[in-house]
């Protein structure tokens, strides 16, 4: 992913929706392929939760130990999968990257997939974001967030550090 890209109104967002829920190995391969596409600004993976412990019923508190909850590596960055990957939302700089995304998916996925264009990740702060991050200062009423690409990537109640993976962040100023 590139860190120098600016958030503008010309961004394109694509939802990649595979026919099957992805095993960690396939998800890792897909994310690495997508990451190689020029112009990808950010990606969001979503799917069904893989809980660490049972949260209801007579077994509450027992470990689940789901085999799909493992650490995967995307462009040298390791993170633990908390979900079984069901879809990937990708934001790219312009239209030219969309076809490359399709080719990357064809390389990584051994079964059919759908690609939908639309508006899936928010690009402008909402009231909830202002409630979480606040204003920059008394005189500057823009959101108090260093990188606006963080918007919409995690649930308002979740912690950024454990849910966001900054790829190649150290290479850019």
């Amino acid at each position, binding site marked *: 992913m590139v860190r120098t890209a600016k958030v503008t109104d010309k961004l394109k967002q694509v939802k990649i929706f*595979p*026919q*099957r*829920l*992805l*095993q960690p190995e*396939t998800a890792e391969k897909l994310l690495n392929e997508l990451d190689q596409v020029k112009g990808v600004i950010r990606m969001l993976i979503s799917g*069904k*939760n*893989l*809980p660490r412990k*049972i*949260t*209801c*019923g*007579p*077994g509450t508190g*027992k470990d*689940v*130990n*789901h*085999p799909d909850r493992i650490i995967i590596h995307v462009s040298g960055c390791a993170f633990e999968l908390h979900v*079984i990957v*069901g879809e990937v939302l990708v934001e790219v700089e312009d239209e030219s990257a969309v076809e490359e995304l399709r080719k990357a998916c064809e390389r990584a996925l*051994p*079964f059919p997939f759908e690609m939908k264009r639309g508006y899936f990740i928010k690009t402008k702060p909402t009231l909830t974001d202002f409630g979480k991050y606040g204003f920059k200062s008394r005189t500057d009423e823009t959101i108090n967030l260093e990188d606006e690409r963080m918007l919409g990537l995690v649930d308002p109640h979740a912690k950024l550090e454990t849910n966001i993976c900054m790829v190649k962040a150290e290479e850019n100023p």
Partner: protein
Amino acid sequence: MAYKPQYYPGNTSVAKNRRKHMADDVEKMRDISDEDLTAILGHRAPGSDYPSTHPPLAEMGEPDCPVREVVEPTPGAAAGDRIRYAQFSDSMYNAPSVPYWRSYHAAINFRGVDPGTLSGRQVNEMRERDLEEYTKRQAETEMTDWGLAGLRGCTVHGHSLRLQEDGVMFDMLDRRRLEGGVIVMDKDQVGVPIDRKVNLGKPMTEAEAAKRTTFYRVDNVAFRSDKEVIEWTQRIWELRTKYGFQPKA
């Protein structure tokens, strides 16, 4: 000629399968031992006695009642067993049983049942030893493909989800999984680990599941492709509507 009930209209494979399930005319596909079944149900330790909630009926001295004389108690009721439950989830991707058909199967072919049907799962409450007999019937026959269905007392999510890459319905608690070409279960229905790996047999292939399913799907057998089913569904809907209509209200 003996009366033979026809439970469901239609001539498609789905309609025929639905009739088979209701009539309990289902093919046995695997063997699951009593101990293994008790273990995955998780209500009592395998091999232990059935806990009871009241003394056996024979010792209780029942009141003089003509209905009690006519209706013979089930083995579980006669012994005073507890009421326990079993719950199945079925994938909408051509699982053999629609939850409603599990209920029909239980209510038509077993006694002392309290079936509860939801969109993607079906729970059934019975006396414990009756429940084991009923669950064994559903678990061993073509009513259950363990790749596309699961015994899930809680966290049942999976019915409406896409299948995993290996063709198995998603299980958030990883109670059962595909290992070496067969489905194994090493937790009970609520996700508590058990002391054994229960072999639940090979999952059905996609083609076989499509053949044995009771789900209507546009990519397999569409509901609207069966004219007789449509006709009877509309007729029952019409009669229900007319019956329920009250001009005075």
